[in-house]
Each structure stands twice: as structure tokens, then as C-alpha cells.
């Protein structure tokens, strides 16, 4: 966000302001009724603020002066004055409460609305799109950027109210005295211009400080995360120096912000006072010449005192506009993304294991750099197939293609003879389960993480937890199945998280189960027990077809068929024994652990 704010310096300011106003128009359009209401309250506030000064002027001429001149309390007028002061302040209070509350509601509604839009879009966009965008950016699109667009709506009603107030103020001043009005016509615009200049000068400095704050935070995060390395290599002094230099840069940036504040704030505060002094000075002549009443001079002087602060609201609005435009562009970038990923309407009849076939399958993340090419694969229902290959050979991509998280660029994936893109989304999800490499748990209970709120009995949940060897640690949790796991399950170990992720897939009795290196964080012995239990389930009636991406030889050995991928193509396929027999590359790959051990043995 900060970097783009810096870039804004290069763009045309008037264009930016124009676009900012257009976004304001869109926001107003979305919350027409409430926004109008907030403006009504704000105008009420503006009018009553001027009225307050008018009451003082009126009281000076009709209560204070007559009473002092006559030496007798002008009771009737005094009661009127007292009531006027109180009733104006009540109206003014209503104006303030209404403006702030309704204005706030408008802001929160706009933010909530865009959050819903953005997250709905995230849920529609395909996995490939998610993979192509950094997580941090997507999260900030839905949070900080959405707030950046609409935060201008916090001061906006007030600013509009202030404009109304200035109109009324100038009108009452004109009614009181033409010459003194001129002072106002100089002071108010000056106040406004100075404030805009101030906010604009401060903008880049504050952005700079904000970005340095991010630097300080990332140094601290990194250094504490790597505390073990820092400590065991005795690098505490160097780390402290690194953190100190980041902190000192932040300090200097904050001081630079402070210096600008220190200049502008006293000037902005003194300006209305200077106005009052001018009014008094000019007022002498006006009163002497009989052109105006003392009450008018007092009224105008008081007006300066109470109008000064609110006028700054207009500056706040203008200062917010760049942020509004940046946020809008980012959020629109997500909402207007044309990527589509439609599902078909075909079903997958039956309930037994699903057969899987690929024909000439090809896929590339970057054009011209195919990850998979010309892949023909036949997996019979109920069999277990292992996919092996070195890093970057296309194993995970294959897993995503057969579960239709991705669509092939060439060729097709057929499930029981039906092209995957033709199959209905719910039907597909019911039949095919993927356990991805990176475990993801929801901030929810253990039960919900396994069932995903589908209608599944606790009995079935426990049954599957036993299969994945998770029953013991879940039993040990304070509330068992009802234990809240916290943000992304951070309270659990990597192995425990992977087991729940496996349970989630198994509990649905999938007809095709795809494990994408889904057991890497497990102890090899535990992994073996789980996979064997899985194989037993499979051999029973209606067990799933299994496709497993694996490194460990023990896992590979459980498969009926092994597919060796190299550079996105099938290098060989057959049983583990067959491949070992005829392929040197395969032997190199799966025997790497053994080779390492044997070399050590021979020394």
C-alpha cells in the first residue's frame, strides 16, 4: 500500500481527485438513504453551530447590553437567551450524534459490503488464480484495501455539513456586516488551503514511516523465529545492531513527521485567533461609524472561534482521496478479474471406486514451459497407484488435475469415462477427495474440521480418527471433538494436523482418494500404520481408487502400480519390482536413502 502511495506522486493530482470523487459517488449511491440522513444531521450541526454564535450576538444586543445600560435585568429577554443557548446546544448535540453514528454506519456498511463481494469472488476464482497471487496481497485486498476505499466516509458527512455551515456563516456575517465578512472570506479559505497543503505534505512522510514500521516488524519476526540459530551461533549482538538500525530509521522518519506537525499545527490553531483580532480591529471603525452593532462584532468573533476546527474536515476528506483511489483500484482488480471456472452438470452414477484415465494431458503455468506433457494414464477402479519423481517433475500438478482443481491445457481427465469439467461440482466433491501437501485447518472444532458440517455421526468420525491414528491425541484434548483448534490449528503439531486432514478426506468415503505428499510430517512408522489401515479399507467392499504422491519407499511399495514421472512425462510405469529391475533412473530416485546409508556403511 505504501509503495503505491509513493507512486501517486507521479500521477496527475487533478485526475486522482476526479477519480476519488467518482468513487465517493459510487459509495453514496450504494448507501443513498443513510448517507442522506447523515448529511441532514451534519447540516443540522453546521447550522446550529452558526446559530450558537448568532445567539451570543443576539444576547449581547438584547440581553447583556440593555441590562448593563439600564442597570436592570431584562428578564424576558434573558429567559429567551437562556432557552436559546440550551435549545441550540440540544439540536447541535443531536446533529453531532446523528452525523457520527449514521456516518459511521454508512462506512461500516460499505466496508462489509465490499468484504462480502471480494470474498465471494475469492470463492469463485479457481485454485490456479489463487496460486498466481501472493496470499498476503489477497488478504489485504479484503481487509486493509477495502477499509482504505471507504475510510473517507468517516469525515465526509462532516465536511459536507461544514460547507453548509460556511454558507450559513457567510450569510449571517453578510447580514451583520459586509466589511467584517471580508475577513472571514480571507481566513476560512486560507485555513482550508493550509490544511490541504499540510495533509499533502504529510502523506508521503507518513507512508514512509508506515513502511519502515513494517521493516522493524519483519526484522523482529525473523530474528525471534530464528532465535535458535541466533543463540546457538552467538549472534545476539549482530541481531541487536540490525534491529537497532531498522528502529533508528523508523525513529528518524517519525521525527520527520513530527517536525511537519510541529510547524503546521500551531499555525492552524493561531489562524482563527488572528481572524478575531482583525475583526476587533476593523470592528472599532465600523462601530464608530455606526455601520454595525457591537453584537454583530461579538457574533462574528465568536463564529471564528467555533468554526475553525470543523473547517479542517474538508482537508481530511481531500487527504484521504489518494488512499481511496488506490484501494478502489486494487479491489476492482479482484472483482473485475475475468477468470472463470465453470462446472458441468453430469453425475457419476454408482457408489464403487471410480476409474481414472488421462488422455494426452498437458499443462503449463507459464506459456512455453510445460509442467506436464502428453500424459496418458489408466488407473483401474479400486487400485492403488503411486506417483514418484524428483522435485518439479509435475507430481503435484497431476494431483490437482485429476481432482479438477486445475483444468488441463491439452488433453483431458476422465472419471469413469466422463470428462472432469462436465461433472457437477457437488457430485465431484462427493466422489473425489484430495489431501493436499500443505495442511489447512479451519478455526473451528475438531469435529467441524473433519466433517466440514456435513451430516456425519460422531461414531463415524471416531472410526476414521482411529484409522489415521488421531484418536489418542483427540481424546486427550480438553473438549475432545468439541475442542476449538484456534487459528489454522496452530495448537497442533504438523503430524497431528496432517492426520486430521487425512481424516477429513477418509470420513467422506471417497471413490477416488488423492494423497499429495500428505504424510510427510508423520513419523515413518506412523505413516506405515496409517497407509496399511488405508489399504485394508481399500480392499474391503467399495474402497476407493487411490493415487498417492510419495517419497518414501515404504509407501511406494504398497502400490499396485508405480508411475515414474520425469520432466512432466511418464518415464516408466509398472510394479515397484519391475521398475527397479529395468530402470536405472528409478533406482537412483527411490534408492537415494539407501545409497546414503550404504556409503556410510562402507567407510
Amino acid at each position, binding site marked *: 500500500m505504501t509503495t503505491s502511495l509513493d507512486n501517486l506522486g507521479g500521477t496527475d493530482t487533478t485526475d486522482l481527485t476526479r477519480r476519488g470523487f467518482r468513487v465517493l459517488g459510487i459509495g453514496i449511491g450504494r448507501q443513498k438513504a443513510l448517507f442522506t440522513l447523515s448529511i441532514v444531521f451534519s447540516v443540522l450541526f453546521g447550522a446550529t453551530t452558526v446559530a450558537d454564535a448568532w445567539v*451570543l450576538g443576539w444576547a449581547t444586543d438584547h440581553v447583556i447590553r440593555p441590562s448593563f445600560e439600564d442597570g436592570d435585568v431584562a428578564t424576558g429577554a434573558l429567559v429567551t437567551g437562556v432557552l436559546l443557548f440550551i435549545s441550540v446546544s440540544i439540536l447541535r448535540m443531536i446533529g453531532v450524534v446523528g452525523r457520527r453514528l449514521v456516518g459511521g454506519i454508512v462506512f*461500516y456498511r460499505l466496508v462489509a459490503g465490499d468484504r462480502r463481494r471480494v470474498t465471494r469472488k475469492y470463492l469463485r476464482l479457481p485454485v490456479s488464480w489463487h496460486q498466481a497471487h501472493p496470499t498476503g496481497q489477497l488478504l489485504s485486498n479484503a481487509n486493509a484495501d477495502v477499509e482504505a476505499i471507504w475510510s473517507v466516509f468517516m469525515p465526509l458527512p462532516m465536511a459536507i455539513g461544514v460547507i453548509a455551515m460556511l454558507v450559513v456563516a457567510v450569510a449571517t456575517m453578510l447580514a451583520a456586516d459586509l466589511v467584517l465578512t471580508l475577513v472571514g472570506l480571507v481566513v476560512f479559505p486560507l485555513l482550508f488551503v493550509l490544511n490541504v497543503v499540510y495533509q499533502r505534505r504529510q502523506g508521503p512522510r507518513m507512508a514512509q514511516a508506515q513502511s519502515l514500521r513494517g521493516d522493524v516488524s519483519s526484522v*523482529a519476526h525473523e530474528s525471534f523465529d530464528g532465535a535458535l540459530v541466533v543463540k546457538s551461533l*552467538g549472534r545476539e549482538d549482530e541481531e541487536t545492531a540490525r534491529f537497532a538500525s531498522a528502529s533508528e530509521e523508523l525513529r528518524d522518519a517519525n521525527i520527520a513527521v513530527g517536525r511537519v506537525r510541529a510547524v503546521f499545527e500551531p499555525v492552524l490553531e493561531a489562524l482563527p485567533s488572528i481572524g*478575531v483580532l482583525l475583526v476587533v480591529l476593523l470592528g472599532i471603525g465600523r462601530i464608530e461609524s455606526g455601520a454595525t452593532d457591537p453584537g454583530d462584532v461579538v457574533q462574528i468573533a465568536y463564529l471564528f472561534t467555533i468554526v475553525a476546527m470543523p473547517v479542517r474536515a474538508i482537508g481530511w476528506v481531500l487527504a484521504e482521496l489518494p488512499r481511496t483511489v488506490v484501494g478502489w483500484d486494487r479491489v476492482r482488480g479482484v472483482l473485475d478479474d475475468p477468470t472463470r471456472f465453470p462446472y458441468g452438470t453430469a453425475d457419476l452414477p454408482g457408489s464403487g471406486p471410480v476409474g481414472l484415465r488421462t488422455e494426452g494431458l498437458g499443462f503449463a503455468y507459464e506459456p512455453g514451459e510445460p509442467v506436464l506433457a502428453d500424459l496418458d494414464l489408466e488407473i483401474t477402479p479400486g487400485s492403488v497407484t503411486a506417483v514418484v519423481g524428483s522435485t518439479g517433475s509435475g507430481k503435484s500438478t497431476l494431483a490437482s488435475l485429476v481432482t479438477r482443481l486445475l483444468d488441463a491445457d491439452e488433453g483431458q481427465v476422465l472419471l469413469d469415462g466422463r470428462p472432469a469439467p462436465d461433472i457437477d461440482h457437488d457430485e465431484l466433491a462427493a466422489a473425489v477427495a484430495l489431501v493436499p501437501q500443505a495442511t489447512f485447518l479451519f478455526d473451528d472444532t475438531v469435529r467441524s474440521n473433519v466433517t*466440514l458440517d456435513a451430516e456425519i455421526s460422531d461414531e463415524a468420525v471416531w472410526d476414521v480418527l482411529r484409522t489415521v491414528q488421531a484418536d489418542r491425541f483427540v481424546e486427550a484434548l480438553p473438549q475432545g471433538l468439541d475442542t476449538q483448534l484456534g487459528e489454522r490449528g496452530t495448537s497442533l503439531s504438523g503430524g497431528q494436523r496432517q492426520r486430521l486432514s487425512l481424516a477429513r478426506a477418509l470420513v467422506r468415503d471417497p471413490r477416488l482418494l488423492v494423497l499429495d505428499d500428505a504424510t510427510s510430517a508423520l513419523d515413518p512408522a506412523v505413516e506405515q500404520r496409517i497407509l496399511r489401515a488405508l489399504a485394508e479399507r481399500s480392499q474391503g467392499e467399495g474402497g476407493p481408487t487411490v493415487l498417492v504422491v510419495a517419497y518414501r519407499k515404504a509407501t511406494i511399495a504398497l502400490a499396485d502400480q508405480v508411475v515414474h514421472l520425469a520432466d512432466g512425462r511418464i518415464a516408466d510405469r509398472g510394479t515397484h519390482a519391475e521398475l527397479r529391475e529395468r530402470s536405472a533412473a528409478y533406482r537412483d530416485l527411490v534408492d537415494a536413502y539407501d545409497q*546414503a546409508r550404504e556409503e556410510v556403511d562402507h567407510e
Partner: protein
Amino acid sequence: MSEKKKSDPREGSLRIIRRGLSLSPAIVEGWRRTVLLALLGTAGSSLVPIVVQRSVDSGLGDTQGGVDSGRIVLVVVLAAVLLGVSGVASWAAKVRIFTGTERGLTQLRVRAFRHVHDLSMLTQNTQRRGSLVSRVTSDIDQISLFLQSTGMILVLSAGQMLVATVVMAFLSWQLTLVVIGVFIPLALSLKIFAERMSIAYDRVRQTVADLLTTIAEPVVGASVVRSYAIERRTQQRIDDAIQTNYRSNVKAQTIVSVTFASAILVGGVANAAALGVGVWLGVVGDLSMGTVIAFIFLITLFVGPAQMATQVITEAQNAVASWRRVIELLETPADVVDPGPGVAALPTGDLGARFSAVRFAYPEGPTVLADLDVTIEPRQRVAVVGETGSGKTTFAKLLTRLMDPVEGTVSLGRDDQWADIAQVSFADLRRHVVMVPQEGFLFDSSLAENLRYGRRSATDAELVAAIGDLGLVDWFEALPRGLETRVGQRGESLSAGERQLVALVRSALADPAFLVLDEATSAVDPQTELRATRALEVLLDGRTSVTIAHRLSTAENADRVLVFDAGRLVEDGSHADLVDAGGVYQRLHASWVAQASLGGGVTPAGTLAP
């Protein structure tokens, strides 16, 4: 601890602020001059009412023509000059405040950061890491925000109100009492408002945290959401979180709006009272007309601060809470203390280790390691095995002095030159003993910078030489930018296995006599695994080493195997001695073999055991 302190928050807050200021001396440096300048700066706001009073009483309010214009001009000019002076004073005060607080808080920030690194691993576990980061970031920012904005407003408003009260009392003490009387109920209710506001904001913060977590689901868990077709459920969760957050925000906004506006009503009542009582006092007493009008102007100086008061109170509470957290961190004693140089020195050359009657337990926790007496000879290659929770990791942490034993001593040395490691300076100890953690942690920098964590003075040529020594040239040459390769956050541009390689080179550069390794459990790509195994072999050659072993081969190839079970050393001997001894090791070994032979196929299980 903080719970107890909350029982007397006022005394606690004062203590916290005093202690906080003493930790950041730059904040209070020259505070007398700063306060003086600030008071002078706020005095400017009282000038206008005085000018109004003087002008009105000098005839401006008198239409019968008796305007003493000369006097009014004099007053105005004088006020203009004073306004200028107070503006300059205000500028100077602000510059001093911003500079002082930033300098002071940077001192505090760096100090807290260093203290975190000085705390032992005991206090610094994973769960607390996030909160430790916020001690040196958001907590300090909160204090800074308070000192420079709300805190300054608080002081300036207090100054402004004080000056205004003095001016008012000077003009008319009776009218002053009236005005103060009107504001007293508001002042009393502020506390209640502030409490309700702080509860409302706590709720908002909670809902924001929930919202952020839920919004992350379709992003971080995109493939899970898609492959289980739970879009509707996910959207429902998000909509609920958005709605809850919206409601709590509106509620907080309601309290803020009402509080903010109530000061306006009170201001109106004060105006009315000043008018009524002022006119009456003017008629029956000697109050001047200018004074009545000046009071109405002076009342505005109370309304502003009263509007901000609840906000100021809430933010002040937050800032004190932040300050308290930072101070509590700094007051947590470092339980593993650097004895400094000169107490005991380690002999140069080979090192062995000796545990004498060592017991370890976490504070108020059960004993995790007991009755440990063991000596590791120089250049011995030791494998430590045992199930999770057996005490093997604690053993490694005691050996590297990441923690201190509750009883007994850990010594390093050889022959008759032994030194209790609690007496050896950190610098000396870290030169001789290096721990290689399970996960190779890298810093977001270049490969060269990461390797230099092992030896800061190493030249590029030495780095390349170290890579070559470990037989990693082919890997290194495949890197796109060689030593200048960026490794990304936490080294994520490299694979887990490659990070492990970097950690090994780093340790080779540190060139310690004694290595402690925590073997990785997770599977990595076979080629990298092979490279790591070969590199490790070179690294261990000619050094004493203790490896927390998760693999059969490591235990098989060690000179000696230490078997831990339930916090005790239960077996000690070579693989050959232990494999048929019928103990814990035999059981562990059997399960390893079962698993290896399952996948082994061609390799007969027999070759695993010599």
C-alpha cells in the same frame, strides 16, 4: 502476575509510567523547559477571550460612542505579538516532545529486543513468539501514539483548562464557580463512559481477529474449499464474521458519538448559566459586560477537551497496558546468564562433555530428565534415541546451554581440563559448541549473508571453499545467482532439504569442536537427502558430535548410542551391543527395520544390522 497488579490499577499505572520513563531517559530529558514551552504555547488560546473582554469594556460594546480605540488597538497589537510568541513556543515544545519520545522509545524498543534474545529457550517457546514480536512493535507504537497525540492533548488540554480557569477566576470567581459546577457532572460520568468504551473496543478487536482468520480461509485454504465444495459453508462463516464485526463497530460508534456530543450539551448549559448569572451579577454587583462575553468565549476552551476526554482515557489505558507488558518483559530475569569472559575457559582443540547428577524440570512442571551421569569422549560420535518426550531434546538443550539444569552440572573439556559450562562466557561457548536445529532456519537475505551467520568475517572465497569441502559444488553451481541467491522469507525460495544444506555449511564455517544435531524428521527430495548425508559425514569428521537420531542409519553408524526413556538414560553402548539386548533400543530398532524392509524390496533386512 498482571492480574494481581490490576487490583490496584491507579498505583500500578503510576508505577508503570514512572518505571517506563526511567527506562527511556530521553523522553524526560529537559522536561522542565518542554513543559514551560508547552504551557506558553497553550496560553495563546486564552488570548482571544481576554481581547474580547478588554475591547468590549473599552467601549466596543457601548453604542454611546465612547470607544477608546487607542486602547483597543494597543490590546490587539499586544495580543498579536503574544500570539506569535505562543505559536513559536508551541512549535518548539512539539519538536522537543516528538524528538524526545521517539529517541526514548527507540532505546526501549532495542533494549526489549535484546532482552528477548537473552531469555533462555525456556521462556521463548513458539506460542509466545508472536506476542514477543508485538512487545517490540505494536506495544511501543501504542506508547508512542499516546505520548505524541493523546498524551500531549491531555497535557495541553489540562494546561489550556488551567490557564482558562485562572483567567476566569481573575475575571470573576463567582461566575467561575458556576461554570465549573456545570462541568462537574460531566467529569464524573466520563469514567463510566470510558469503561463502557473500553469494553466496546475490546469486543471490536476480538471480532477483527475473528474476521481476519475467517477471511483467510478461502485464500489460504483455497484448494480445500474447492475440492470439498464447501463454498457455501465458507461464505456463511465469513458473512457471520463480517456481521458480528459490523455490529460491534456500530455499538462502539454509538457510545463514542453520544459521549462526544454530551460535552456540547453541557457547553450550552454553561453558556446559558454564564449568561443568566453573569447578567444578574452585573446588575447587582460590579461584573463588567466584557467579562460576561469573555466567559462565553472561555467556555469553548472546556468543551473541546471534554469532547476528547473519553477517547483520551481509553487510549491512555491502552498505552499503560502496553507499557506494562514491555516492562514486564524487561523485568523477566534472563535465567541463562552469560558469566562474561574470564571465569572459566575451554581448552582449545578437541572437546568432550560430562553430565554430573543432572536433573531438569520446567518451572512448576514434572521432571523431564533425572539422575543423568554420562561422559562423552572427544571425537566420539554419539546418537541419542528415544520416543517423543523421552528427554533426548532436553539433553541436547542442556548440552548447548540453551537451558540450565535444575540440579547437577554440565561440563566441557578433556583429560583433566574441564569447565562447568555455566561458568564459560557465551562467546567462548558458542565458538566451541554449535547446534544444528531440525529445520534449517534462513534469514531473508542472500545465501552469502546466511552462511556468514556461521563466521561473520568469512570472505566469499572462504564461503565457496566451505561449500566445496562439504561436496556441495554441484548443488551450488545450479543456483541461479550463486552466493548472491536470495533465499526469501525464512528461506522459502529454497526447498526444505536445501535449507538443511545451508545450515550444514554454516556450521562448517563456525568450525566448532563439538556439534549437536537435531535430525530432521520430514521427508525431503531424495537427491537432496543424499547430498545432506554426504555433507554431514564430512562435517562430523574429526569432531565430537551428539545427534538426536530419527533414522536407523544414524544410530547404526554412531560410535555410541544413548537411549532415553521417560526422562532417564536407560541404555548406553554401541548399536551392536544394544540391538539384541532386549531393551528399549531393540524395540525401536525392530520397528525401524520393519518399516525399512517393507519398502526395501531388494535390500535384505539382514544388511541393515552388521
